[in-house]
C-alpha cells in the first residue's frame, strides 16, 4: 500500500510527514537510551529481510496481490520503537531506489506502515497475549496483531486519500479495509511462520 506521489494533497503530505518526523525522533530517543549497539546488526538484517519479503507479492482474491508489511514481525523481535526505525529505513530505500511509494508521500507511507501499523499491531499483540492463556496467547497475539497492523495502516491510507480529495472518504475506507482484511490474513500467517521458525532456530533473538 505504498502511496505514490499525486494521490495526496500538499497539506495531507506535510501533516503526515510532520507527525512521522516527531514519532521517529521519539523512537530514536527511546532506542538510543537502551541501545545496545548489539541491536544494530540485528536491525540491519531485519530491514533487509522485510525488504526482501515485501518484494514477494502473494495473490489474493479478485486479481489483486498483497505483501508482508512486517511491522509486528519486527516489533516482536526488537520492540516497537526499533521496529519503527527498521521499517522507515526500508521505506526510504524503496522510495529512493525503486520508485515504490512517492517522495512527497514518504511521510504518509512512514506514518501508515512504520508508525501506525507497527504500534496498532503491537497494541493488539500485547492485549491478546495478555488476555489469553500463555500457551496460545503469544501465537494468537501475533496473528491478530499482524492482521490489525495491515488493516489499520490501510485505513490510515484511505483517510489520507479521502482528506486529500482524491477519493470519497467512505468509499475509499470501505474498499481499502475490505481488500486489506484479506491481505492481513497473509500478514498474520507469514508473521507467525517466520516467528515460529526463528524461535526454533534462534530462540535467543526472541526475548
Amino acid at each position, binding site marked *: *500500500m*505504498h502511496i*505514490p*506521489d*499525486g*494521490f495526496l494533497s500538499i497539506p495531507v503530505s506535510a501533516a503526515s510527514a510532520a507527525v512521522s518526523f516527531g514519532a521517529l525522533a521519539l523512537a530514536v530517543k527511546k*532506542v*538510543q537510551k537502551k*541501545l*545496545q*549497539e*548489539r541491536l*544494530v*546488526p*540485528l536491525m*540491519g*538484517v531485519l*530491514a*533487509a*529481510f522485510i*525488504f*526482501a*519479503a515485501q*518484494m*514477494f*507479492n*502473494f495473490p*489474493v482474491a*479478485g*486479481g*489483486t*496481490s*498483497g*505483501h508482508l508489511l512486517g511491522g509486528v514481525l519486527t516489533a516482536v523481535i526488537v520492540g516497537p520503537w526499533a521496529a519503527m*526505525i*527498521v521499517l522507515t*529505513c*526500508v521505506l526510504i*530505500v*524503496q*522510495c*529512493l*531506489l*525503486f*520508485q*515504490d511509494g*512517492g*517522495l512527497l508521500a514518504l511521510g504518509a507511507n512512514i506514518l501508515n506502515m512504520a508508525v501506525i501499523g507497527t504500534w496498532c499491531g503491537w497494541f493488539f499483540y500485547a492485549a491478546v497475549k495478555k488476555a489469553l492463556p500463555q500457551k496460545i496467547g503469544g501465537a494468537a497475539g501475533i496473528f491478530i496483531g499482524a492482521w490489525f497492523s495491515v488493516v489499520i495502516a*490501510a485505513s490510515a*491510507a484511505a483517510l489520507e*486519500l479521502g482528506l486529500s480529495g*482524491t*477519493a470519497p472518504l467512505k*468509499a*475509499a475506507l470501505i*474498499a*481499502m479495509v475490505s*481488500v*486489506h482484511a484479506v*491481505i492481513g490474513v497473509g500478514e498474520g500467517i507469514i508473521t507467525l511462520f517466520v516467528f515460529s521458525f526463528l524461535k526454533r532456530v534462534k530462540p535467543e533473538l526472541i526475548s
Partner: protein
Amino acid sequence: MSRKSIIVSLLVCVLVVVLAAIFASSHPDGLEWIAGKMGFENSATTTIKSPLPDYTTPTMGEGVRSTAVAGLLGVAAVFLGTVIVGRIFSGRKGRGKSVE
C-alpha cells in the same frame, strides 16, 4: 549477532529475493487495485527518477534476472543503510573519524 549469523541471515534474504523475482504475483496490490477501480490511478506522478524503477534493472530490461539483480542491490542498500543509521543514532562515533 555473530558475523556468521549475519551472513547466514543475509543469504536467506538473497534467497527470498530470488524466489520473489521468480514467483511473486504481478497482480496490482490493494491500493493500486482500488485506485484503478475508483478511477484515480492516473493521478499518480513521479517526483524523482529512481535508478531501479519498479524493481527492475534498466540495463537488463524486465524479467526474473532484472528483478533479482535489483532486489539484491536493494537488500545490500537496506542492510547497509539501516546499520549506518543505527550506528549514528546509537551514539557510536564513525569509524573513519580522523584523529587530530
